[in-house]
């Protein structure tokens, strides 16, 4: 895992930086322009979630391989207040921040794999992946 990117998230500028870095890495690994945009958009949502709820955290992006598929794994981690009700946080339109409530459910729809681990007081870790479509 030589080329894992670690991007600190502590301001809105960092959100833009993280999604631009994610797009660059996706492009370097041969993702289509459409998938690059999807990955960048998902990164933007999870990075904003860090800023909104935990104020600071980290986004890590790395290439990965799974059962012969190449892809990109994105991990968004914070040590903020955590999420009490994960099912609710993944519901469209649910928000405790006055946003659209599309951040986490939207990121889940954009990516192929999506996993959310959180508990009150324990912070939140989102792990998500996008796999390159094989052209058969």
């Amino acid at each position, binding site marked *: 895992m030589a080329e894992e990117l670690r991007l600190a998230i502590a301001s809105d500028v960092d959100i*833009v930086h993280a999604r631009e870095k994610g*797009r660059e890495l996706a492009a370097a690994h041969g993702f289509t322009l459409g998938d690059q945009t999807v990955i960048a958009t998902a990164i933007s949502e999870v990075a904003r979630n860090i800023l909104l709820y935990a104020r600071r955290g980290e986004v890590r992006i790395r290439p990965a391989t799974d059962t012969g598929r190449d892809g990109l794994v994105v991990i968004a981690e914070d040590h903020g207040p955590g999420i009490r009700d994960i099912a609710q946080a993944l519901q469209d339109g649910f928000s405790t921040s006055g946003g659209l409530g599309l951040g986490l459910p939207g*990121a889940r729809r954009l990516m192929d794999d999506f996993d959310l681990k959180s508990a009150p007081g324990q912070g939140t870790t989102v792990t998500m992946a996008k796999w390159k479509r094989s052209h058969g």
Partner: protein
Amino acid sequence: MEVPILKQGHYLIASIQSALTDADLSQLREALIARVGKYRARGVIVDVTALDVMDSFAVRTLRDIAHMARLRGSETVIVGIQPEVAFAMVQLGLSLKGIATALDLEEGLAFLDAKARERA
């Protein structure tokens, strides 16, 4: 990065040049709403051709701009949403329901002209 806002006839044109932070987007919203009054603008065009990502915050801000401008008597058109961006927006679950969109600046101006004729 401040977004330049041009006045053209009765219209304001905000031409986004590069990626915007949340603060930049909020600043654009304030500037546009203030200028709708100052210049008595009948229409607002926001050109998003240069945006390679439109996430939930960007879409909410554009929606707010359109709704606020309408309350001030001005129509808004969003122009230049890129095809990949449109695809990601739909996947994300974002829509611009009730807000006019057009392919490019030229179409946006034509839309506002047609609206103005309707109102005349």
